[in-house]
């Protein structure tokens, strides 16, 4: 009897032990499955996000390549570029009218993301392309300097002083003793670049094969608000459109125009004063329809010191006088007027005019970032950015879409 009872008890214990073991085992499997599912879900989400950013980085790389004169293509489906723990390639297709389609495909783990960007080639406006351009001639008196710098790289300091300036004309260019053009000089067809002893053109001196046309200025129609005179105090002009019959910022005064703004000014006088622009939210365009006189000691420019953010579009035929101003930034475009940079003037930007005279000791520092479409633009503007589905990519591959 004792033997039989002990055997029964041992069987019960075994049953309980197996039951508990199976229960624990089952719980472990269930817990592991939940954890694994959660892990896979998170991993997939993380990989998709990483693939998205990798595809976007690939597009940025392709855009830099395109703006540097390349095709924009990076790698291929069979020869992918590796980066950030994944691989990518960018297909570049010329879709006509100066447009390029870039499709970046990025793979990380099991995730694939495709992003399309379409860029449009855009020539920079004429007035941004030259350090100096004089339709009927350029005279550079003794001791002048025309050179370049890149405002996107930093300020005008030694390492950022370049030799990419371009002086051009539809007629002759005359460079007097001791002056220097750090860059190229291009005279009009049949004309020449005349250099006196001791003057320098570090790049090439040549004649153009065809004339450069200076487009007329289309002055916007804004009702006049009469005269604007600011004397000996600081003031901010809010964003908007303005038309003043005369615009005087007198000595000791400081005016800051908040962009986006358009100013039509029939007469402009800066007499040793300050004229600045806050272009954080948009550019400031200044149309001058009459006399422009910037007197000695004046300073002007955008607060961000990006010359292309302040453009003086001068439609009048009166001579434009720019006296010595230090640390002044902006671009002057005067297709009908002669611009005279008085002795000691110092401009960061560029001047395009009917005729230009740089008086002795004046300097122009052309911002090379303007030459490719202005700050932030390098001749290829982004017109479309979108995430593509695999089906949309197939349509593009088969020519049913751009």
């Amino acid at each position, binding site marked *: 009897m*004792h*033997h039989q009872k*002990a055997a029964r008890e041992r069987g019960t214990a075994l049953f309980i032990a197996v039951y508990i073991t199976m229960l624990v085992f089952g719980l472990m499997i269930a817990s592991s499955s939940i954890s694994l599912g959660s892990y896979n879900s998170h991993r997939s*989400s993380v990989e998709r*996000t990483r693939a*998205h950013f990798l595809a976007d980085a690939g597009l940025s790389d392709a855009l830099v390549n395109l703006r540097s004169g390349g095709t924009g293509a990076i790698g291929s489906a069979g020869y992918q570029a590796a980066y950030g723990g994944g691989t990518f390639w960018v297909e570049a297709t010329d*879709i006509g*009218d100066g447009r390029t*389609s870039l499709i970046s495909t990025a793979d990380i783990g099991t995730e694939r993301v495709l992003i399309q960007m*379409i860029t449009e080639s855009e020539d920079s406006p004429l007035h941004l392309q030259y350090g100096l351009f004089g339709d009927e001639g350029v005279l550079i008196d003794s001791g002048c300097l025309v050179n370049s710098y890149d405002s996107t790289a930093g300020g005008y300091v030694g390492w950022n002083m370049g030799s990419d300036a371009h002086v051009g004309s539809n007629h002759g260019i005359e460079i007097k003793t001791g002056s220097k053009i750090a860059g190229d000089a291009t005279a009009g067809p049949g004309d020449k670049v005349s250099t006196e002893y001791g003057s320098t053109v570090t790049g090439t001196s040549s004649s153009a094969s065809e004339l450069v046309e200076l487009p007329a200025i289309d002055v916007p129609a804004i009702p006049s608000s009469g005269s604007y005179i600011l004397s000996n105090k600081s003031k901010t002009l809010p964003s908007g459109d303005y038309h003043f019959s005369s615009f005087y910022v007198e000595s000791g005064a400081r005016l800051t125009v908040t962009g986006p703004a358009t100013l039509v000014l029939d007469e402009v006088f800066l007499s040793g004063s300050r004229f600045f622009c806050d272009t954080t*939210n948009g550019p400031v365009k200044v149309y001058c329809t009459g006399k422009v006189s910037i007197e000695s000691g004046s300073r002007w420019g955008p607060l961000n010191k990006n010359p292309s953010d302040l453009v003086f579009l001068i439609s009048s035929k009166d001579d434009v006088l720019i006296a010595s101003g230090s640390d002044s930034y902006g671009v002057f475009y005067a297709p009908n007027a002669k611009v005279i940079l008085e002795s000691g003037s110092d401009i960061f930007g560029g001047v395009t005019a009917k005729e230009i005279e740089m008086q002795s000791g004046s300097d122009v520092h052309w911002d090379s970032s303007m030459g490719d479409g202005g700050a932030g633009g390098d001749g290829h503007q*982004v*017109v*479309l*950015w*979108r*995430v593509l589905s695999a089906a*949309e990519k197939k349509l593009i591959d088969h020519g049913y*879409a*751009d």
Partner: protein
Amino acid sequence: MRAARGISIVELMLSASIFTMVLWGLFSAGPKAVGLFRVNFANSNVDDRAMHTIDRIVREVRSAGLDFCTPRLGAPLSSPSLTFQEPSGFDGEVVWGPTTTIAFELDPGEKSDDIDNDGDGLVDEGRVVWTQNPGLAGEVEVILCRRVTELADGEVMNGADDNGNGLRDEAGLSFEFDGSNLTVRLSLADLDSTGHQVTRVIEETVAIRN
């Protein structure tokens, strides 16, 4: 016969004591562990929902056209909804897709009255709704997330910035523009096993690309 003699009373008492202590330990720690697990689970669940929802919203609006985004309010103002259009292709010029709205809506049965009208333990909660072609025949509506608080965590409807994030009286879902940058903020709530409210606030800033 020796093997069948069994165990002594001392051995029995000792093993019974150890067994009792182990059981006591298990039974006393178990509920606490389970409770902690449930609280963590609730926290984790809210975190997951918040991240998934904001990722989805950001993915949608990143490729929107800036000019099509309305309203475009900047700090200290913000909007509980955003209407926008994304490019659907390029045919000589950008082809824009249907109008889409992402907005906060109060739950059905819930009112904006500081009372839990629907008896789910949360007060004035709502949901994030994605709507394509709003108000048109082809309208499609998808609920991206539930249990969104009517106002952001720490915010009170008083015209002031109570939670110090630079926005006044912002909703549980808010869109704030700074130029072409859009900041999306989402405030989610849930109840843990003890009935306490768990709230999470998450924000993400995205540059609008078109």
